[in-house]
Structures are given as C-alpha cells and as structure tokens.
C-alpha cells in the first residue's frame, strides 16, 4: 500500500461521495423539506445519466446520439430531462400519502429501468452507452481524478448553497409548514399540490445531475447501474443517518456511509481466504445495522434539522 495509492483511493472516494451527496441533497428537498417519500431515486438518477450520455457521446449505430455536445450542456440537459420526467410522475403520484407514494415511486423507477433496458433506439437497451467523454479524462490517472473531484466539489458546492438558500428562504419555511401540518398550510392559502410538485421536480433535477456526473466519471452507463440497492436505499440511509432536513447532514451522511461501505471491504479482505468471500455480505449487514442503530438512538440523524428562528440568523451570516 503506497501513499500515492492511498491518496488516489481517497480521490476516488471523494468523487463518489460528491455524487452521492448530490443525490442525498435532492432527496433532502423531497423528504427533508416536503415530506415526500420518494423510493424511486434510481429512476431519476438513470434518466439524468442517460440524458447526458446521449447528448455528449459520439455517434453509435442503432441508437439516438452522436450530438457530441460539451459535458456541461449534457449536465444541464440531464437536470432538465429528470425534471421533465418528474413532472407527470409527480402530477399523478403526489396525490398519494407517504407509504403509498413510496410504493408508487418504486414502481416508477422500475418502469424507467425497463424502458431503458428495452428501448434500443433510445438507450442501446441492455448494452448501455459507452465512450462518454469525461472532462479532463485525457490527463494521467491521478491528475484526471483530481480534476474530476474538483469539478464534482464545485458542482456540489453550488448545489448546496442554492438549496441552503431555498431552505432559509420563505419557500423553505412554507415547505416545512406543508410537511408538518398540511391542513394548517392549506388554511393559510398555500397551494399544497403545486408546492409539492415543485419540491419533487427540484429534487429530481438534482438526482439527474448526480446520475450525469456518475456516467461521465465511468465513461459508460448501463442498466445495471439502476440498482435499487446502491442507487436508492443507500441514498436513503445517507440522508437518514446524516439528518434529514439538514443539507450539511445530507452531505455528511453521504461521506460517512460511503466511507464505511467502501472501506469495510478492505477490512474484511484481511480475513483468511475462505471467509473473505463470505465477509463481503457483511457490508450489507453493516449498513442495515447502522440504520437500525441510528433510528433507535438518534432518529434525527447526526446533524439534526436546524430549529426555526433561533439559529437561523447565525447560520446565514456565517455562511454567506
């Protein structure tokens, strides 16, 4: 284990944490602000990844594409595509309450996965899209990862600042009011359905952006990436552990969960050969155990949602 290797691994983890933090931020808008139980993160992740892949990849026979637009156009496109897909879905599904919405959104994610898997003209079906350009991808291994991490960090920072601003703005207060007491908010004259749809679409757009960052990092996207375990439930655990309703909590949760998820494998690899393979399943167990512990002992997460009024003014002045 050389130092440069460790550093390189840390860079890689940083990139993944950044991507997952975007997903967790998107979920925070939906669940943390608006109380929408979206269990279909993988679907919006996939829409974003494929939208950007189609916009930026070189021509390939038998599928849509060949536009070869710059990566940032693809990323903006991925947000627009995910938002556009989220709009009709939200229109239909947001009438459901919490657990029903969860079931409906799992179904939606599955529909998106199947469409992607079978539409050869659109997504090259099960084969996926390859040769997606990666910004600064021509640099040597370490430098290229550094450059990509810088981009991801920048995107995350911008997203964080914007979401945080929304959170502290009247819009955020209104969303929390709708979440906590829908009837009261309705009595105040708030258009609940419209506001919920707004939160759903904003969140989906961020998830789409996360998907695009993921696809460009791997230079490829295949239907196998739309796995509910790593693209939906892991994100939920990140948000719950970090603290739903708190944007910094979402980012911290992404960092902690991904680090444990990834580093625990190195630990289990030190076991004797015959156990090392079996021990891979411990990772799944660890994540589940962690969720149980957090829910039992600290349901509000590592960083709880800031209380209204008292801390908000300090927060705002120290950040901006």
């Amino acid at each position, binding site marked *: *284990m*050389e130092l440069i*290797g*460790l550093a*390189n*691994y840390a860079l*890689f983890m940083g990139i*993944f944490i950044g991507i997952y933090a975007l997903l967790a931020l998107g979920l925070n808008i939906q669940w943390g602000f608006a109380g929408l139980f979206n269990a279909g993160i993988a679907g919006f992740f996939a829409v974003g990844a494929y939208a950007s892949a189609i916009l930026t990849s070189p021509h390939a026979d038998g599928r849509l594409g060949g536009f070869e637009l710059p990566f940032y156009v693809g990323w903006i496109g991925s947000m627009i595509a995910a938002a556009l897909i989220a709009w009709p879905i939200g229109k239909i599904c947001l009438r459901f309450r919490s657990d029903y919405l969860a079931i409906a959104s799992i179904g939606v994610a599955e529909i998106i996965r199947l469409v992607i*898997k*079978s539409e*050869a003209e659109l997504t*090259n*079906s*099960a*084969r*996926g899209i*390859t*040769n997606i350009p*990666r910004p600064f*991808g021509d640099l*040597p*291994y370490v430098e290229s*990862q550094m450059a990509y991490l810088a981009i991801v960090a920048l995107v995350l920072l911008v997203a964080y600042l914007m979401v945080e601003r929304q959170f502290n703005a009247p819009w955020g207060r209104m969303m929390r009011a709708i979440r906590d007491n829908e009837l009261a908010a309705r009595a105040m004259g708030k258009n609940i359905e419209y506001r919920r749809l707004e939160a759903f679409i904003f969140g989906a757009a961020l998830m789409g952006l996360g998907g695009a960052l*993921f696809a460009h*990092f*791997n*230079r*490829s*996207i*295949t*239907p*196998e*990436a739309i*796995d509910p*375990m*790593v*693209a939906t439930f892991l994100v939920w655990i990140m948000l719950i552990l970090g603290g739903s309703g708190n944007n910094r909590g979402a980012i911290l949760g992404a960092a902690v969960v991904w*680090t*444990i998820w*990834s*580093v*625990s*494998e*190195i*630990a289990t*690899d*030190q076991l004797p*050969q015959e156990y*090392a*393979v079996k021990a*891979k*399943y411990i*990772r*799944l167990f*660890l994540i589940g155990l*962690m969720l149980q512990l*957090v829910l039992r*002992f*600290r349901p509000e997460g*590592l960083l709880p949602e800031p209380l209204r009024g008292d801390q908000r003014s300090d927060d705002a002045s120290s950040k901006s």
Partner: protein
Amino acid sequence: MKSKVLAIAGGLLAATALASAPAKAADVKIGLIGGVSGPIAAMAPAMIDAAQLAFQQVNEQGGVLGGDKLVGVVGDSACNPQGGTDAATKAVNIEGVVAIVGPHCSGAVLAAAGSVTIPAGITVVTPSGTSPEITGLADNDTVFRTVPSDDYQGRALARTLKGMDYNKVAVAYINNDYGTGLANAFKAEFEAQGGEIAGFSAHEDGKASYRSDLAELAKGGADTLVIFDYGDGTGLTILRQALENGFFSKFVGGDGMKSDAPIKELGAENLSTFVASSPVGEQSKSLDAFNEAFKASGGDPNAIFVTTSYDAAFLLALAVEKAGGDKAGVAAALRAVSNGEGEPILPGEWKKAKELIAAGTAIDYKGAAGDQNFDENGDVPGTYALFKVSGDGFETITEMK
C-alpha cells in the same frame, strides 16, 4: 447523546481503517473482481475458486518471477458499475495488483475499465462479460476477455445455416439482452450472406399462447423458424405451438434452446427437423486437465464460466511472468503467450511454462475453454457446434465457424 453517536460512527470508521494492515511485500497480487453479492451471487464463488486454483498451481510449482507467491485478491463488484469501480479502485490503489481477472458483469467491466484500469494502465481479463460494447472500448489494448461476445454466436449460426441451404427464415426472440443481442447479430450476418429474413419479432416471456405471434411470422412465407429463447421456458411453448399448428416445418435454436426439456415434452420423433447451436468446451486435453484439477480441489467443473475464469487467471499469471512483473508490460505479454505460436502449454503446466519463458522460448497457452487466441480487440472466438436431436439427447452435426 451526540458524542455517543459520533463515537459509534467514528469507531466503525477507525475499525475499518485500522484493520487494513499492509500485506507482505513479496507477494505478487492479481485482483479477482466478481459479483460476490448481487444478481450472480450464486455463480461467482465457483468462478473465483477456479481462478484461485490457477494461482494455487502456480505457487505449488515454484511461484512467479523469483519464487514470489501469486495471491488473488478478491473484490466485490456486486454486478453493478458502482461496485465495479469501487472494487477496481481498491484493487489498483490499495492492494497494488499487477492485473485483474474480472469484473464478472459487463456493466461493471465497462465502468471499471473506463474510470480505473484504462487510466491506470492495468490489464483486465473478464471471464464472463459478454456485451458487444466491450469490443469497441478505447482501451489502449488493456481489456481482454476469455468468453466470446454475444455477437459471435449469432453470426456463426447465420453463416452455418446459410451454408446448409437455409435461405429464408423467420426469427422469434425473447425480449431481453440475451435474445435481442443474438437476434440482431444473426439478422445482420444472415442478410449480409444473402439470406432473407421473412419475419422478425420479439416476444415477452411467460404468455400462455404465442399462436398469433407465430401466425404473423409465418405470413412471410418462410419454412424455417429460428428461436432465440430458453428451451425450458417460453421457447418450449413456441416450439410446441408452431409444431401443433404447422406454422413452420424446420426449427433452429440458439444455445438456450439446447435443453432436454423439448425432447422430453415433445418427443424426439417430432423434432427431427430441429437443430440448435451451443458452445462446446473444445474436447481437448486442456479441458480434461482442468476438470481433473478442479474436481480434486472440490469444485464442480460443469459450473458456468469456471473454465473461462481459470483461463483468465492462468493467462495473467503467464503474462506477469513473461513481463517480469512489470504492470505496464502485462498486456503485451498476454498477447505473446496466447498468439497461437510457440510451445503449447496446457492448464496446470506452470513449471514447464516458467522454464520456457526463462529460456526465451515462445509459448502458447491452450485454455480449458478454448485456445484463447485474442483478436485485435482482445476478444476470443467461441467454439460452437450445431446439434440435432438423436435419441434422448443431442448429437453434433457440424462445427460452426
């Protein structure tokens, strides 16, 4: 309360970080990245065992280079790109592997190659990534596979059928990546050879009746139906209904159709015009040598992809020896030990190979799953044969080229 939780989280982090003590320096490591958890969890352990068998044989017969031990470092790709890149990054950066066997699933191969191994210049050989997309990767010649691409069988079947005077056929295929891949490759090659596709349609799995699909396909006037489906599933239903209603008189299947189910259910006497293609482990001394060794170590040689996994691992061991342990030279060395020229090396013949490499003699590995001579894209041609029904089983008619 807060400190308690932080302590738990911090404790977990610290425990996982501390446990990763560095391994002994004399080991030469090769990554074994497989879908240990995830959809192919049932297949992965046997594949990893087969690869470990290759390393075990190497170590028993003198090790690599100056007697160093070859160690397989197992990583979990979970059969998805997220896990694939994670496992590959750890293998390359933390473990410092010289090469990688795997990942097992195509999506993980594409992602791990694109983001980790190609930039790092590490050679990967996948034993089970069959996606045609892997062929076209801009990989600086570092991505190889010991299993034929899905495209290959479809094309070989098209050429063979055309050579056997099937000129006008209809194609029915199951709507998944297996059926679609085979059917499209078949169609392209069959038409390129001057054949006519009189009907081409996908069907969904598990319906009770396919008569309307079959009637539609039969309208084109072909007398032969090519079925890319599974013989113990929907493919059987289609075959039965086509026979019962006399839509077609001749039938051809892909490897999924070469199953005992149609013979048991429909009777061999009704299947005299049915032929099916299937990969054949070349009946060679290589395969026997592998089967014997794998059985002796407690494995099942008939498990899927074990031969390709073994070949990938043994080939990489040869390449590492040939390259003198230099990561950057492994890819070129891999071509050198498997280009079809030189002294043949069978599975398990490490000592002989090591001496020949030391003497500078050219060697050529003859693998358990085939000769494993890579083409310019790092792909291998498969060994397929066309079978007809005979008695209660299948009998080879011809090799497919």
